[in-house]
C-alpha cells in the first residue's frame, strides 16, 4: 500500500460518527464483530466508557460541535446492565435530549441509542451500516458556527465555550 | 419442473392415529429375546442405520422407524412393511450402530416373523426364494442356484422366468449353471438329522 493514500476520499460525503460504547456489552460486541471479521462501514470511531450511564448529554452535544455527523450510543440490553440500571438512566436522559435536539433542528437519525448485548457482533455491523447510510442521505450536520470577536487573538485551545475560570469575589 | 396446482383428488387425506389397544405392546420385548436383537430397546433413534443403509431410500419405513415401531408395538405395520424385505444383509447398519444393535439380525428376525405370520407382501419372491433354497438344501445338502431361481420365478412370476431364460442358457453354455444338482459326498441323512434336531428343540424361532 502506498504511503500517500489519499485520506480521506475526496469525492463523496463520508459521515463521521462517534460511538460511545459501554465496556461490558456493546464494546465487547464490537470486539466480537472484529474477531468474527464482520465487515462494516469504517465511519464510526468508538469511545469506550464503563457504562452507558456515564454518557453525558454534554458529550453528545460536544461531539456534534466538533464536527461529527452522528452520535451512536450503545449499552447493555435492559436488565443486563453490569451496573444494574445504568442503561435505564442513559435511556431517560437520551429521550429528553432527543426532544431538545429536535427543537434545535438536529435530525432524528443523527443521534441514536442502541442496546447491543456482548454476543451481538452482528448488530454492531447492522446498526453501523444502517446509520452510515441514513446520515449519508442527510449530509453534513450543519450546526451554526459560533461567532468569535474579531479583535480577539486567535484562540489557542478548544475551550471556546468554557467561560470563566470560576472563583468568587 | 412445472408447478401444478394440486387438485382435491390428488390430496391423500388419511387419518393417522394409533390407539393403544391397537398395539401389541409386548412385541418389542419378544423381539429382544432373539439372538442379535437383544439390544433393540437401547436404540436412541439416531438414524445412523437409515442413513448408512444403501436401500433405505427405497423403504416405506426407514430402519430407524422400524425399530421405533417394533419397540412401541406397531407389529402389523412392521411385519407388513416392505423395509424388512429390502434389507440385503450388507451389515452396514450393524457395523455403524452406536448402540451396537445388530440391526441386520433384527431384520432377519422380522422377516422370519412375517413369514411365520404369513403377512409378507404378495408377489414378493424373497420368502419363496428362501423356502426354495431351504428345500434344495434339504434334498441335496447343497444349493443349486439355477434350479432354485428357476423354481422361484415359476412360483412367483412365470413370465419373468421366460425373460431370464436367455441368461440361464448363456450361463449354462459357459459351465456356470447346471440343472444337475451338486450333492454332498456323504449321506444327506446326517444333515437332515441335525436339522430335525433343531426343529424339535423348542427355540421359538422356527417357522413352525
Amino acid at each position, binding site marked *: 500500500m502506498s504511503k500517500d493514500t489519499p485520506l480521506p476520499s475526496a469525492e463523496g460525503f463520508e459521515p463521521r460518527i462517534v460511538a460511545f460504547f459501554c465496556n461490558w456489552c456493546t464494546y465487547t460486541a464490537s470486539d466480537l464483530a472484529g474477531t468474527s471479521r464482520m465487515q462494516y462501514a469504517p465511519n464510526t470511531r468508538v469511545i469506550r466508557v464503563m457504562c452507558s*450511564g456515564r454518557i*453525558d*448529554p*454534554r458529550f*453528545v*452535544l*460536544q461531539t*456534534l*460541535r466538533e464536527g461529527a455527523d452522528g452520535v451512536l450510543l450503545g449499552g447493555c440490553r*435492559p436488565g443486563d446492565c453490569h451496573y444494574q*440500571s445504568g442503561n*435505564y*438512566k442513559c*435511556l*431517560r*436522559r*437520551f*429521550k*429528553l*435530549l432527543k*426532544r*431538545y435536539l429536535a*427543537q*434545535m*433542528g*438536529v435530525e432524528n437519525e443523527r443521534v441514536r441509542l442502541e442496546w447491543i448485548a456482548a454476543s451481538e457482533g452482528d448488530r454492531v455491523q447492522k446498526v453501523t451500516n444502517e446509520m452510515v447510510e441514513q446520515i449519508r442521505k442527510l449530509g453534513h*450536520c*450543519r*450546526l*451554526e*458556527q*459560533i*461567532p*468569535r*470577536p474579531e*479583535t*480577539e487573538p486567535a484562540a489557542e485551545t478548544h475551550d471556546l*465555550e*468554557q*467561560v*470563566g*475560570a*470560576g*472563583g*468568587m*469575589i | 419442473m412445472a408447478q401444478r396446482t394440486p387438485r382435491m383428488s390428488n390430496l391423500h387425506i388419511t387419518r393417522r392415529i394409533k390407539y393403544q389397544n391397537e398395539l401389541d405392546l409386548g412385541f418389542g420385548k419378544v423381539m429382544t429375546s432373539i439372538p442379535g436383537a437383544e439390544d433393540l430397546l437401547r436404540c436412541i433413534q439416531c438414524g445412523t442405520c437409515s442413513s448408512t443403509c444403501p436401500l433405505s431410500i427405497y423403504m416405506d419405513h426407514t430402519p430407524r422407524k422400524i425399530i421405533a415401531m417394533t419397540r412401541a408395538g406397531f407389529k402389523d405395520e412392521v411385519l407388513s412393511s416392505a423395509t424388512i424385505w429390502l434389507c440385503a444383509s450388507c451389515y452396514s447398519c450393524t457395523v455403524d450402530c452406536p448402540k451396537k444393535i445388530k440391526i441386520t439380525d433384527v431384520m432377519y428376525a422380522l422377516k422370519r416373523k412375517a413369514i411365520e405370520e404369513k403377512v409378507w407382501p404378495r408377489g414378493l419372491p424373497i420368502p419363496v426364494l428362501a423356502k426354495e433354497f431351504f428345500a434344495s438344501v434339504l434334498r441335496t445338502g447343497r444349493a443349486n442356484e439355477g434350479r432354485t431361481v428357476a423354481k422361484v420365478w415359476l412360483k412367483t412370476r412365470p413370465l419373468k422366468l421366460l425373460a431370464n431364460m436367455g441368461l440361464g442358457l448363456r450361463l449354462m453354455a459357459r459351465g456356470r449353471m447346471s440343472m444337475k444338482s451338486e450333492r454332498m459326498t456323504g449321506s444327506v441323512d446326517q444333515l437332515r438329522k441335525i436339522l430335525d434336531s433343531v426343529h424339535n428343540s423348542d427355540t421359538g424361532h422356527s417357522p413352525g
Partner: protein
Amino acid sequence: MSKPKAGFYWCASCGGCEESVVDLAEDILGVVEAIDFVFFPVAMDFKREDVEAMEDGEMTVCFINGAIRSSEQREMAELLRRKSQVLIAYGSCSYQGGIPGLANLCSREEIFKFVYHDSPSTDNPQGTRPQVRFDAPEGELELPSLDKEVKSLDQVVEVDYYIPGCAPPTALLKAAVEALLSGDMPPKGSVIAPDTALCDDCPRIDTKPAEPLITEFKRPWQIQIDHEKCLLAQGLLCLGPATRGGCDHACIDGNMPCSGCMGPVSRVRDQGAAIISALGSLLNHDDPDEIDKALDGIPDPAGTFYRYGIPHSTLYARCGITAGNGES
C-alpha cells in the same frame, strides 16, 4: 486625583438590568461618589458622539447589558470596548444571550413573517416590512439592520468579566464595583458570582429526598405549591441544581422554581445539557412509554433548559437559521 470613569449601556435587553442599579438604593450614592458616570443613556444625557470623542481606554469600566442582535448594538459594543479598560457583560442577556437569545430557535425570516404578517394582532394589508434604507421626504433614512442571530456580548467583543442574573443581584454589582475600586480583581474572564449551584444555599434542600424523585413534571399553575418542600420533589422543573447561586434564592423564596438565569457553574460546559442529564437520571421510570409520558410534561425543553443561554450553549442556534433568505 480624578475619579474613575464608568459607562453603562444597554443592547437587546428589557431594562431590568438598569433597574438593578436603581435597586442599589442608598448604596448608589456611594457609587456615584466614587465613580464618574460618563455614559449612561437611560439615566443621563450623553450621546454616542460623546463616547466617540473619548480617548481609547478613557473609561475605566463599562457595563453592557443586553444581547447583540443589530448592527447598531454591534457597533456600540465595539466602540465601548475600545474606550474602556475593563468591559463587563452585565446580566444574563449580555453574558449568555438571555431571553432574546431564544430567538436563535427561529430564522430572521420566520420572525419577520410572524411579527409583520402572521401574528393575530397584526394588521398590515400592504405587507410592509422595515427597511434598512428608506427614502423619506426629508432624505434617505438609515435604520440599524437586524442580524441573522442573537449573540452574547463576548461573541462580538472581548469581555473581561461577567455578572450573571436576570436581573443581576445588586450584591454582585456592589461586590464588582468594590473590587474594581480596590484593584483586587479576579482573573480575567471570571464570572463574578459564587461558583456552586443554587442548591448549596437553597433553604429547602433538607426536604429534597435522596431518591429518584420525579414521576411526572408539573407546571407551577397546576399544583398548590408547598412553601417548604423542595420544588423538584413536587414535580416542578427547578433548575437550581444546574444553576449558579448568588441570586439569594429570590425565586425560591417567592415559591417559584429556579429558571436558571445565573447560568451554569464554571465546570459545566452546557447548562441545559447538565440539567437534562440530572433530571433525566432522576426520572423514576424504566418503561420507555412511561418515560415518554412523563417527558410530555416538558413541552418546550429548549425554552425551559436554555431559557437564558441558547447563544452561549454548545449548539448555539437551531441548525440552518442563518441560511437562505431573510435579507433586508
